[in-house]
């Protein structure tokens, strides 16, 4: 087990370094930040340009520059955001909690709805309920997230006026004030629901097919023959084993959610890392883009790593591979 964790850790670190190399390399290829950062008045002044280059460390060889970047990136130091004129690090500190809240809420909704529905539709195969669930899954995988988000805003925020359409309310940071909690949940419902939709569909189908397979095994049949109640057989014997693939998928989707929420964050003006990334992309704000992508990428790699290690604990067959 230790060897397995060690191997996965090293793989994770290599991937992280590769990611930073690609990201930094593309900045390097895309143009000259020193020229980009020159004030308009000094645009053609070569001495100012050279000075700027030296100050930013851009006169050194590529490898040295990359090393400096890496050293700073470990402490989340990506320089100043061009548009907000303050350290990207500060912005990240405000944005990360928002994205994590949203991803966790979406994940809890997706698992809480998707797993029971999948198990029930496997047990009650080919009934009306199974068909309704299947139709919902087909719809959930085909509908554009940003569109369903807008439609829900029109209905719930505009037409009925039940829920807020935008933002995170007055919630800031990781833990809101006690009085702020109901309002925080009201703001979370719509974006988390939209985020969950596509995953619910996938989790449901996965849970259903895993459950069908397990229901067909000898040990489940034997438990039934032995005269055990349906409820015990389904939820204790079958569901536990059917959930292993679902858990892996859930973990990987959580990692994806941490990043994949760009579209949802944009539609709901949710002040998270995804929105920060898009703002950066649209305004050529390289430090901000670098920060957001490195943080998202690192979060993705780390979550995938944790899922893999947990999976190694749950299923000994994985470790041997």
């Amino acid at each position, binding site marked *: 087990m230790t060897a397995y964790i060690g191997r996965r850790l090293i793989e994770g670190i290599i991937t992280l370094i590769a990611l930073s190399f690609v990201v930094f390399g593309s*900045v390097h290829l895309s143009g000259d930040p020193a020229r980009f950062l020159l004030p308009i008045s000094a645009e053609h002044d070569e001495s100012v340009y050279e000075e700027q280059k030296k100050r930013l460390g851009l006169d050194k060889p590529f490898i040295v520059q990359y090393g400096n970047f890496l050293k700073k990136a470990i402490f989340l130091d990506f320089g100043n955001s061009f548009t907000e004129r303050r350290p990207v690090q500060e912005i990240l500190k405000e944005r990360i909690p928002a994205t994590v809240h949203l991803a966790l809420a979406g994940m809890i909704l997706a698992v809480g709805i998707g797993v029971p529905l999948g198990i029930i539709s496997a047990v009650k195969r080919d009934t009306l309920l199974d068909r309704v669930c299947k139709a919902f899954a087909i719809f959930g995988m085909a509908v554009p997230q940003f569109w369903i988000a*807008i439609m829900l805003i029109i209905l719930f925020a505009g037409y009925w006026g039940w829920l807020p359409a935008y933002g995170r309310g007055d919630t800031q940071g990781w833990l809101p004030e006690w009085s702020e909690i109901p309002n925080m949940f009201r703001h979370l419902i719509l974006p988390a629901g939209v985020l969950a939709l596509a995953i619910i569909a996938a989790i449901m189908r996965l849970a259903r097919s895993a459950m069908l397979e397990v229901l067909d095994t000898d040990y489940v049949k034997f438990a039934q023959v032995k005269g055990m109640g349906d409820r015990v057989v389904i939820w204790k014997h079958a569901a536990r084993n059917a959930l292993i693939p679902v858990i892996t998928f859930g973990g990987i989707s959580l990692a994806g959610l941490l990043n994949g929420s760009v579209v949802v964050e944009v539609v709901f003006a949710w002040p998270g890392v995804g929105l920060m990334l898009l703002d950066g*992309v649209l305004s050529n704000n390289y430090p901000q883009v670098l920060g957001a992508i490195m943080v998202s990428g690192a979060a993705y790699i780390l979550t995938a790593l944790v899922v893999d290690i947990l999976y190694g604990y749950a299923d000994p067959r994985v470790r041997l591979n």
Partner: protein
Amino acid sequence: MAAENPALTFDNRAPTGWLQRIREARLPWIPITILLVIVFCAIFADLISPFDPRENDVRNKVQPPFATSDHILGTDKLGKDVLSRLIHGSRTMLQVTAPSMIVAILAGTVVGLVSGYSGRWVDSALMRITDAVLGFPSILVALLIVTYLGTGVWNVMIAIAATQWARFARMIRGEVLSVRDRDFVVLAQIYGVSPGMIVWRHLFPNVINTLMVLTSVSIGQVILLEASLSFLGLGLKVGDPAWGIMIAEGRKLLTQAWWIALFPGVIITIVVMAFNFFGDWLRDYLDPRLRRAG
């Protein structure tokens, strides 16, 4: 008479003519019809759309659907006809997704074939890269590419291709590995056939089915990705007739004019569903081994 002769009975039951074969295949008619309608709209967009999709009609702006006799599905905030924009949107969708899919398929197939056939360090190096691309959410990869290439249709197409080829490479490599050690390949090697020829004549024909299935299953995802990138304002310009852009424009007016965002979303959902159904059918038809439980 027929019952006495087993050969004759067999002949009678086997699908011979193309009409009979189509009947046996249980084609999914509804998705096929939808897709044909979309392709028809894309080709003849100029002929069938009632208005120019870029033309502003300031006297008739923000008209709800079915309110006037001219603009059946209403108009947007500059008076552009929603129906005409929807019809032209199908053309835009095909123009953006088709070339990027083709590039992704070509690149993925080449990488998969090379990786699967050459094995050893070439294989592990190529698969490392493939897994890295595959592991990352496509929208993040696309954003990274657009950041450094700039916004625009071409760059969005590059971004789509760059995120999609990996899936093809992985799948094709797996298929090649399962065929590589079969007798006909080994015999060809002993016979002295060049590696290029073996890949082209003996391996490639064996992965075509997988390729077709994977293509039809991925198209839906690609359409969604393209629409998302347009919606985020990374690809086409505001005013262009693309479904994602129409939804983005509708978002600005969502309390006054729900129809601008509603119709393109419905169309995207229907088209993606049609492709997904068609892909599922093709998978079952070409390769029953790939059929999943349920």
